């Protein structure tokens, strides 16, 4: 079973009558790191949630290779903009997705400890996860997302509100996952981060994709007026 290519065909998402996204058509390949950019309210989060199967199309279609929605969800991980932390220890939080998949506790804990070392939370391992700092919580979310070895990792502004050091740690972990062959799709407002990480860019405005393509090309020569204004730092309405 293959998750890719991930294709959207004139997909529209509406919640309680208001249109949050669409129509959107695009094709996402199995490789590289795609960055979603655009002003607030342009539909970035809705797009990511649609890719993950958390939202459904009202019109149009979404296809995850030859997978159904549930299988597609299972082969992806999603890191929410504000970390959702379970009321238990750091290790138990990271063990959680494996336990959902019925991995034996001892094995799951060994695996979790590997990831805890990877993200540098060894000293926090047995602490209540809700007492972590913002950066640590985001690292925990990442470790929890990566422990299931997803084919696709979706991140919604993973380093919003984080300081430089934490942002660097997060980016290192994202690149590590990418090197292991995991496809990455992330939304960010941080131009520097986008330039550092992106292989290709999808630029959103008013719920639709205005530009889609090579990252370098987008940053050097945006094709649309809105893209140019956005990169200049003008206020887009």
């Amino acid at each position, binding site marked *: 079973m293959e998750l890719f290519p991930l294709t959207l065909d004139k997909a529209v998402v509406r919640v309680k009558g208001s249109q949050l996204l669409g129509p959107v058509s695009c094709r996402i390949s199995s490789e590289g790191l795609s960055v979603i950019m655009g002003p607030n309210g342009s539909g970035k989060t809705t797009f990511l949630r649609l890719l993950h199967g*958390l939202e459904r199309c009202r019109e149009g279609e979404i296809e995850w290779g030859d997978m159904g929605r549930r299988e597609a*969800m*299972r082969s992806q*991980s999603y890191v929410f903009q504000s970390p959702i932390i*379970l*009321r238990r220890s750091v290790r138990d939080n990271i063990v959680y997705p494996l336990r959902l998949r019925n991995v034996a506790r001892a094995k799951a804990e060994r695996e979790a400890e590997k990831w805890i070392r990877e993200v540098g939370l060894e000293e926090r391992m047995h*602490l*209540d996860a809700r007492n972590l700092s913002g950066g640590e919580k985001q690292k925990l979310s990442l470790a929890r997302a990566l422990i299931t070895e997803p084919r696709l990792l979706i991140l919604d502004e993973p380093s919003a509100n984080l300081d430089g050091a934490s942002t660097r740690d997060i980016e290192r972990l994202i690149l590590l996952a990418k090197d292991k062959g995991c496809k990455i799709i992330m939304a960010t407002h941080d131009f520097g981060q986008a330039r550092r990480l992106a292989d290709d860019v999808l630029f959103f405005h008013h719920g639709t994709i205005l530009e889609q393509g090579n990252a370098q090309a987008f940053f050097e020569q945006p094709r649309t007026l809105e893209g140019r204004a956005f990169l200049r730092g003008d206020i887009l309405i």
Partner: protein
Amino acid sequence: MNELLAGIGDAFSLLIALDPDLLEISSLSLQVSLTAVLIAAVIGLPFGAWLSVSRFRYRRSAIAILNALMGLPPVVVGLIVYLLFSRSSPFGVFNLLFTPTAMIIAQTILVTPIIASLTHQTLRELWFQYHDLLISMNASKWQRMKTLLWEGRRGLLTASLTGFGRAIGEIGAIMIVGGNIDHLTRVLTTAIALEVGKGNFPLALGLGFILIAIAIFINMAVHILSKTEREGTW
């Protein structure tokens, strides 16, 4: 006022003497109410959790009915259980009438809606908070319920203690199905009613104070035990 003081005095003299009858009825009170709460929790917690994560057509009505059942009149429950277990009734053959088991059944019926409803109220908030995460991780319905129950454990403890409070102080139902038989089904509340009937207010009050003390003790014990479980960091 003098009677209140006499009541406190009676409570202490009963306690100091470790009156065997007092110990018997107190321990039966605890046995009946704790067992009822335990069974009610086994039913009510999963049901409340199920209600929080399920969406079905008559969900709103089901929740409204459940909330209303929190206020079930004990006497009516007692009468219904009595009529079910009376020897001339379908369940009469079990010979459960006027036994602690019948009292447990009646109190379970009273307490289950309380625990289920409070569970639903607690977990509904949590479900709102963890909805995206659990769906994203593909948790099955049963796993969602289990996770929410664990995440809400503190609130659910309070819900169970609320149920216990209702059970231990309840008299209407257990009087009818238990019969207040000395050495068999007499508990603190029915003993109090008996003493009031004899006009023996100081002893009734003394028993009442002991009942209140037991309720406070159980609540404190549960909270202390559950806090130490994990360095008090919930």
